[in-house]
């Protein structure tokens, strides 16, 4: 199995566009492919395909519950908590868990010598499993509104990848911090999508720096080629970063996307070229069982 993450520092460069189109061309070329939407704060990939919801899995996290009958207000749990999620005023006998700040690490429970802390699960979101043509093909990580971090939901989604899959496409959340690292960290190769503008370049540099610290293989797809300037290309050349493919800026492509259609289904040259791009990556870096 080979896992390929589609990512970008900047939002709206076309990650979901590239991920859904690559997934489509892989299916069309008879690969056993899966698409995992890891953009748990704004998941949008599933709507592009005809799918059937197979299963909904609740993702939870444990948070502490304090039994004030046993609590001596010693403050050890507060001291153990590295996230400031326990508020305590010993003289007033006030202790409170700030659930939004809790990461569920369990340190407070270990800290407590008086059996005053138990734990309860709280919902963080859902992992939705979808089938396409009878096979489990799409997984969506969807964080509840108001939850702080999408990372636990992303982790849970990745766990449901079917072992039989040859190629797994992960649609990454934007940015370069925790959610992106979680997604890129589990992949074998990262395709960075950028656009040839100053904002695109600045965010691309940030993504590249992060992938270098993670020691990941990566290449770049330039979307909306033709707008902006040449600085992105100069940077790629100078840093020796492979330019995998350029998607020209076409209003028709934007229109198809806007109504939830897969452009590759209507544009055979785009479909062919995208497939060739991915197949190249698979042949070069894939493990033996992902190659043909």
């Amino acid at each position, binding site marked *: 199995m080979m896992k390929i993450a589609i990512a970008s*520092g*900047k*939002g*709206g*460069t076309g990650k*979901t566009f590239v991920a859904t189109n690559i997934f489509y061309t892989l299916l069309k070329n008879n690969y056993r492919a899966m698409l995992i939407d890891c953009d748990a*704060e*704004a998941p*949008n990939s599933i*709507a592009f395909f005809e799918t059937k919801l197979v299963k909904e899995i609740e993702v939870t996290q*444990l948070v502490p519950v304090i039994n004030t009958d046993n609590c001596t207000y010693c403050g050890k749990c507060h001291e*153990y908590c*590295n*996230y400031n999620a326990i508020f305590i005023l010993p003289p007033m006998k006030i202790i409170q868990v700030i659930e939004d700040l809790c*990461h*569920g*690490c*369990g*340190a407070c429970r*270990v*800290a407590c010598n008086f059996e005053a802390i138990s734990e309860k699960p709280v919902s963080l979101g859902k992992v939705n499993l979808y089938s396409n043509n009878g096979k489990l093909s799409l997984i969506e990580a969807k*964080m509840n*509104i*108001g*939850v*702080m*971090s*999408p990372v636990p939901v992303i982790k849970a989604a990745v766990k449901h990848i079917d072992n039989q899959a040859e190629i797994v496409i992960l649609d990454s*959340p*934007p*940015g*370069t*911090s*925790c*959610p*992106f*690292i*979680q997604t890129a*960290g589990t992949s074998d190769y990262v395709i960075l999508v950028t656009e040839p*503008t*100053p*904002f695109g370049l*600045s*965010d691309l540099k*940030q993504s590249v*720096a*992060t992938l*270098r*610290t*993670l020691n990941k293989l990566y290449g770049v797809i330039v979307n909306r080629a033709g*707008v*902006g*300037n040449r600085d992105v290309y100069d940077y790629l050349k100078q840093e020796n970063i492979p330019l995998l493919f350029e998607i020209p800026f076409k*209003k028709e492509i*934007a*229109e198809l*996307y*806007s*109504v*939830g259609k897969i452009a590759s289904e209507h544009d055979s040259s785009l479909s062919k070229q995208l497939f060739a791009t991915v197949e190249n990556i698979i042949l070069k870096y894939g493990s033996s069982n992902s190659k043909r």
Partner: protein
Amino acid sequence: MEVAIVSGKGGTGKSSISAAFATLNGKVVLADCDVDAANLYLLFNPSHEEEKAFITGEKAFIDYSLCTNCGLCIDYCRFNAISFKEEMVSISEIACDGCRLCSRICPENAIGMIRNDKSKIYAGTFRNGKMVYGRLAPGEENSGKLVNVVREKAKQVAKENGLETIILDGPPGTGCPVISTLTGVDKVVIVTEPTISGLHDLERIVELVKKFNIQIFVIINKYDLNLSVTREIEKWCLVKKIPVAGCLPYDENIIKAMVNRKSIIELNPELEISLKLNMIWNRIKNQEK
């Protein structure tokens, strides 16, 4: 007055719109809260009057001269960050959440913590006021906390310089940095675009903003890319009783302005899109709750 510009979906034009608002009239404090992908400094090239390191969190590391490979830390770690690798206890830097529990329970005191301190916050002057922005170092976490620091600094700078308006260019999504951007602001502007994804993400961010009781405005950017979805968004906003402050046309001058390191207003204040932005900003500024 603190105004936050956000969007559920990335790339809807938050930064270009924030830049326009920041150059429309009187001096402002502009704070870039998209710390994962801070971009406004590219347009405004602010001076660096202040620079401060920001601690994003900690990571556990093992002192192998003390470690006896007992594996107790593996049992305690809830992030599956510790495992045996080639018969040695090993901590995955990616999976480590920095909770410190392993370090506390290790019977040999063989686990220490390293602070991530490479992220920075900057404050300075730009051509239409003061600017504050944070930059998260590659691979570092906890952008919500950094957003809080950026906002505190922005408020301080506003007070010191007698500036009334603070414009916050927010991050995309609905998670922790967005929540940090929204907490306690006076007005929020949600930028969306007429795509199925845009509408879907608008619904999610509105659900989040409603938890805060903040005055909401929606801008539909590139509305002419798909008029029927634009109408659908307008209808949805009407039902939800959220004012659409205005629709902006698709205009390649937005990218031209960016390449020239200018806001669209600075590029040409007479363009249709510039005039509309001016109208929208006045509406947002002056409309009482």
